[in-house]
């Protein structure tokens, strides 16, 4: 089994390295790279605008991808799928087009201390601008989001709950289903930041009953520059456009404009067509493997990783009840940046820093962590290499 799952990913042939930073971005299987190159070489055309065949084809594939994504997420219909440039844009879109107009002075937005900056700053700034309050849920003694705290803060003033599905620092899988239920009972809509779950957990937006779900293509074996925002139709329909330009309008006069229905209302200008083609190939790749299988496999690797790390005596940050494919740790008192640079000299790629989660770092009272994260292409050998690398790091820094 050693290394054979890496054959789908050309990077491991050309640059043999232990890649343990899939939480930042995933490598791309050949089918994804080829789908985009093939599109540019043989079928390129713009979407929606053209009456000729290349454009008609491109439009068809573009809209078929939307349907495929709707199925992938189990959305009710493809009109609930909006193409964005990534999770960050998806979340900003909801802040701008959904929440801004609903937010009154003294209203409240609820997030958690675990959030990535992408699901933190947009709400912080929106709250600021509208004299609303940002409520940050703390962690309980197990390092999980405190559900009692959530229950206590939900009120008629709460206008949105925005929560990451999986923490990109601790790897903890948050009980989003339960949180959504609590929020809905209080009449509060919920956005799920799915950046860290999309490649690892089966997502069913109807079962979750989330109001919005945002993710990035590049974290699920797809290209950069493309992402998806799922939004319940009833919300999308009442939301004003996010940006203005071509392809999102029905009619423009000197005085007023009328806009298309969702999802096109939110897709101004020429979209990232090749990005959509690449995402289509990436989701087909993931579907062909089956997310349940991916999850089982990755869990095995991650459990082994956690266990070996623990055995090697490093300090693991957070002990989530359910862990996805991410582990953060500290090696003695060696600065995480030094650990990552020395591991890099051994061709091991991990991340070190605050992981765009400065509030969490401050909360945990650590300036940074080393983070190892697992993708489909990782194997037990990678774990072994990492542990060896940590031993080497200690030797260098002793």
């Amino acid at each position, binding site marked *: 089994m050693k290394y054979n799952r890496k054959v789908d990913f050309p990077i491991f042939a050309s640059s043999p390295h232990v890649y343990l930073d899939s939480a930042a971005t995933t490598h791309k299987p050949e089918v994804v790279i080829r789908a985009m190159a093939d599109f540019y070489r043989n079928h390129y055309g713009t979407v929606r605008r053209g*009456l000729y065949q290349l454009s*008609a084809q491109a439009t068809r594939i573009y809209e078929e991808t939307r349907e495929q994504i709707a199925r992938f997420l189990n959305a009710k219909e493809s009109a609930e799928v909006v193409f964005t440039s990534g999770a960050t844009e998806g979340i900003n879109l909801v802040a701008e087009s959904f929440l801004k107009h609903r937010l009154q002075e003294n209203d409240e937005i609820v997030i958690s201390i675990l959030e990535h900056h992408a699901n933190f700053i947009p709400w912080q700034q929106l709250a600021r601008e509208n004299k609303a309050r940002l409520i940050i849920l703390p962690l309980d003694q197990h390092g999980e989001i405190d559900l009692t705290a959530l229950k206590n803060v939900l009120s008629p003033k709460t206008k949105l709950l925005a929560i990451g599905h999986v923490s990109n620092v601790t790897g903890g899988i948050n009980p989003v289903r339960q949180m959504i239920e609590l929020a809905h009972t209080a009449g509060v809509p919920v956005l799920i930041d799915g950046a860290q779950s999309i490649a690892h957990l089966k997502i069913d937006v109807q079962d979750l009953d989330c109001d919005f779900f945002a993710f990035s293509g590049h974290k699920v074996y797809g290209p950069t520059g493309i992402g998806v925002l799922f939004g319940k139709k009833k919300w999308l329909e009442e939301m004003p456009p996010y940006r203005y330009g071509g392809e999102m309008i*029905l*009619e423009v006069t000197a005085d007023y404009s009328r806009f298309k229905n969702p999802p096109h209302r939110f897709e101004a200008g020429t979209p990232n067509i090749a990005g959509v083609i690449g995402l289509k190939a990436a989701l087909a790749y993931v579907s062909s493997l089956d997310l349940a299988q991916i999850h089982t496999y990755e869990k095995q690797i991650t459990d082994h990783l956690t266990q070996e790390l623990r055995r090697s005596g490093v300090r693991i940050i957070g002990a989530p009840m359910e862990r996805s494919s991410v582990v953060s740790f500290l090696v003695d008192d060696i600065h995480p940046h030094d650990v990552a640079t020395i591991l890099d000299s051994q061709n091991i790629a991990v991340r070190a820093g605050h992981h765009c989660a400065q509030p969490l770092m401050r909360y945990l009272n650590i300036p940074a962590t080393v983070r190892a994260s697992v993708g489909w292409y990782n194997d037990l050998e990678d774990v072994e290499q990492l542990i060896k690398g940590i031993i080497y790091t200690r030797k260098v820094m002793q």
Partner: protein
Amino acid sequence: MKGTDLYHPLILKHNKNPLHFKVDNDGDKINAYNPICGDEFQIVISIENNKINKASFHGYGCAVSKSALDLLLDRIQNLDIPEAVAEIEKYLRVIELDDPPSSDVYSLAVFQKVKFHPARRECATLGANAILRHLRERLV
């Protein structure tokens, strides 16, 4: 003519010499407008005893929107409202949902070729949708 070609002789004929293209103010006035392509027709349907006994249109549109509307008006003439609604719905299923055309869609089946020209789908349905909306309102 290739299998994907849109311009069936029947379309060209009804574009050039539409049967119902005239200004007639005698009846229900229906506006069919597609801001995206600028096509706009004024349709007039006169209904007596719940039956469409006269139908005409004028305005500006492409060969597809014009001939489709002309053929549709011809088709629903002399039908009563529920019959006309059923007829238009049948047609729209062929064009919008790619249903196979049953023999009784008659000549309108020539428009199914828009499936190879997705940007032209709305041309083939512009008039139909406007009339359908109007007739449904009358039914209530």
